[in-house]
């Protein structure tokens, strides 16, 4: 089954996403960018350009470069909006035979849906190239205020581009879907969408499996581009005031300033202050001139305050005004707020929205991509309707096995997708140990005693051997239903034991949260405890090795070395049961250095031994 493409067909930029392994993923276009300008052009050689390339030549080919066609799609030529847009859009707009709108590009007339289709076709080709498979179906988003004719025209655009359009989805609904808000029952959601060129507000109500648009509002000619213009105007004016030079007349200087201003705007979303430093920006009779100016977040906020206040006023109206102008609700009726559009990264906007509703807005997903992601989520739901036999679960908590000193050794970490299996080899902790206890637990704490026990069983009949020699293979296997099977096998004797645990993932949500919270609360002290136990384990194993080496070396090692080692062994034995990992580690390392002397003295002795007589071949 081929994938369904989620498409945010924007006024300024478009974005695409698909579901992959149950998660939405934004796809990059052929130029390696995550958004594509919704622009189409025919250049002087008659070549059609779409996206970034069309944008790059728009200044020198304004009559044959079509942008913002979303403002025209599905409209009548007589609409008042068309009357208004006609005046500022640089390309020719005319009435079609049926009273609709047509745009002219390279002496040919096109319907707006044909232009949108060219953008969609590029997106389709780029997605196919990225995924390496054909894409036939799409979910395309439109503003909530689009009427039937505008929706139908958008659907036609999709079909001209070669898609079977599975759904025309409202942009705010897509944003809510991206945040999973469709699952909440009877909630009222405000979507605040501040894009590059348009500002949209939508009030949604989530019911049983439906998302109803209660009201829409906004300003179709207010956007982030207005902010950029304000910043540049301010910088130019300040420079003129301080240096007496008007750089707005110098295209080179203005271009550099434009790039720097955009960067500064982005930086001020995370920094309080930024510096615009453009050496040699221009020159006058006195010589070269530089541009060095600090821009603070507060100044930026001042510059665009009226725009933001206006947007907040529009939100208030759309929520509270009686129907049909608004949703007729109180501000306190709103349960969730979703921020969409690149401009909402500005902390001032986030604060003002928060202040209005007295609620934290959702803003975790990239606001430029949230609509495309929501479209992909809808595509995923549609794909699921057809055939979704595989809904994979994850393990909510870590599954572990108890090892020496009561440590919980993780076998399957939390959030691992099931079905899965994990195998690890363990060994014995004492000489001639003939049985091991397999203690299976669940939880995030490093010590098994603090976690929940799921099962215990004994594997016996292990042939006696020194510690560390037997190989016990332990397998944790969880099937798709969350049933955990733990088995232990002694590789030498072939003896095996196993247990089946039915309820390994059946903890209630509260229980899981409680266990996770406990783990977080005790993280520090647990870590210390675990470190001490690990140090102790290491110490014990070194004491074992040291004693064994001394025994085996017998008289070959001088008495003073033996004494020194025995002293270090006693010291380590003394401290190893304490709680201070550092002290144990120091004593361990001292012993470890000391026992190297056994080897040294053995080699020395070997060197002193009389040489064997050479065999005489004669």
């Amino acid at each position: 089954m081929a994938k369904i493409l989620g498409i945010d067909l924007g006024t300024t930029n478009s974005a695409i996403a698909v579901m992959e392994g149950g998660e939405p993923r934004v796809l990059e276009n052929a130029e390696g960018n995550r958004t594509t300008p919704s622009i189409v052009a025919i250049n002087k050689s008659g070549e059609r350009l779409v996206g970034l390339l069309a944008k790059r030549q728009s200044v020198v080919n304004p009559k044959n470069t079509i942008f913002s066609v979303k403002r025209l799609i599905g409209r009548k030529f007589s609409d008042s909006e068309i009357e208004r847009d006609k005046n500022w859009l640089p390309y020719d707009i005319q009435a079609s035979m049926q009273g609709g709108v047509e745009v002219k590009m390279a002496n040919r007339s096109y319907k707006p849906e044909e232009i949108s289709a060219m953008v969609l076709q590029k997106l389709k080709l780029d997605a196919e190239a990225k995924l390496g498979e054909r894409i036939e179906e799409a979910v395309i988003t439109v503003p909530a205020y689009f009427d039937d004719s505008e929706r139908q025209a958008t659907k036609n655009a999709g079909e001209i581009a070669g898609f079977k359009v599975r759904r025309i989805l409202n942009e705010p609904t897509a944003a809510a879907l991206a945040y999973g808000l469709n699952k909440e029952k009877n909630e009222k959601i405000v979507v605040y969408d501040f894009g590059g060129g348009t500002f949209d507000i939508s009030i949604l109500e989530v019911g049983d499996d439906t998302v109803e648009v209660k009201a829409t509002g906004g300003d179709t000619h207010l956007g982030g581009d207005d902010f950029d213009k304000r910043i540049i105007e301010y910088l130019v004016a300040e420079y003129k005031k301080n240096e007496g030079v008007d750089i707005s007349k110098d295209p080179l200087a203005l271009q550099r300033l434009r790039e720097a201003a955009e960067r500064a705007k982005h930086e001020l979303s995370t920094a309080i202050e930024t510096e615009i430093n453009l050496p040699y920006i221009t020159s006058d009779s006195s010589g070269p001139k530089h541009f060095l100016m600090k821009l603070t977040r507060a100044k930026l906020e001042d510059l665009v305050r009226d725009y933001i206040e206006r947007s907040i006023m529009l939100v208030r109206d759309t929520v509270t005004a009686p129907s049909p102008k608004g949703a007729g609700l109180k501000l306190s009726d709103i349960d969730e707020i979703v921020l969409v559009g690149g401009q909402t990264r500005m902390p001032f906007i986030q604060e003002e929205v928060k202040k209005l509703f007295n609620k934290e807005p959702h803003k975790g997903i990239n606001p430029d991509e949230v609509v495309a992601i929501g479209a992909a989520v809808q595509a995923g739901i549609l794909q699921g309707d057809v055939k979704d036999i595989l809904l994979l679960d994850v393990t909510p908590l870590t599954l572990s096995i108890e090892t020496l000193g009561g440590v919980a050794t993780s076998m399957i970490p939390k959030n691992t997708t099931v079905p899965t299996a994990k195998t690890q080899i363990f060994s014995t902790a004492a000489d001639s140990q003939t049985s091991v206890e397999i203690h299976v637990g669940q939880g995030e704490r490093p010590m098994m005693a603090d976690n929940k026990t799921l099962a215990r069983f004994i594997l016996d009949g292990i042939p006696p051997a020194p510690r560390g020699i037997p190989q016990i293979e332990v397998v944790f296997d969880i099937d798709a239903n969350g049933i955990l099977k733990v088995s232990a096998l002694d590789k030498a004797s072939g003896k095996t034991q196993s247990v089946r645990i039915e309820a390994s993932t059946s903890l209630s949500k509260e229980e899981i949260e409680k266990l996770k919270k406990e783990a977080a609360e005790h993280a520090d002290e647990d870590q210390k405890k675990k470190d001490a136990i690990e140090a102790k384990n290491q110490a014990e194993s070194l004491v074992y090795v040291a004693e064994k080496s001394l025994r085996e070396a017998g008289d070959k090692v001088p008495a003073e070395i033996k004494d020194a080692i025995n002293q270090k062994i006693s010291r380590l034995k003394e401290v190893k049961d304490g709680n201070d990992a550092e002290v144990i580690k120091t004593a361990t390392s001292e012993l470890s250095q000391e026992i190297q002397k056994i080897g040294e003295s053995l080699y020395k002795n070997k060197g002193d031994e009389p040489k064997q007589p050479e065999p005489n071949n004669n």
Partner: protein
Amino acid sequence: MNEEPKEENKEIVNDEQKLDDDLKEKLIRCEKDRDEYLEGWKRAKADFINYKKEETKRFEELIKFGTAELIQELAAILDSFDFSLTVLKNDEPARKGIFLIKSQFEDFLKKHGFSRIVVSKGDKFNPVLHEAVGEIESEEPEGVILEEVSRGYRLYDKVLKPSRVMVSKIKGQSQIKE
């Protein structure tokens, strides 16, 4: 009364028939389920293999282009060096030193995949490499580059920033609608 045994027989036959039908139906359902599961399993496996390949590619890209933002910011500093060199006179003692620092800096960037987009007056405008920021009336053929306003660069084969240029326009011709 004669009818009775016949009825019974019929019922037995009917029961057997029903059992047969039930089993057949169950078999069909099981076969359908099996095909569906097998299909799902194959698909999941293929998805995973494709995902792994895609992930490897993505990882390579990440290593190659992970420095893009840093290189872009450093390139802006390189531009500033260029500006200073165009302004400083040739006999200025500091000029040579600045030139050498600039070369050292540019060589370092080149080692990390950076290259400049070279633009000369008279080159044909190409939106893959250039972005037009304005037009100037001139005697030159229409659509050729007259001036580079801000320099463009690539990281390996990817255009990080197009070269921003002014393009020629035939005298007296305006594209903006009246």
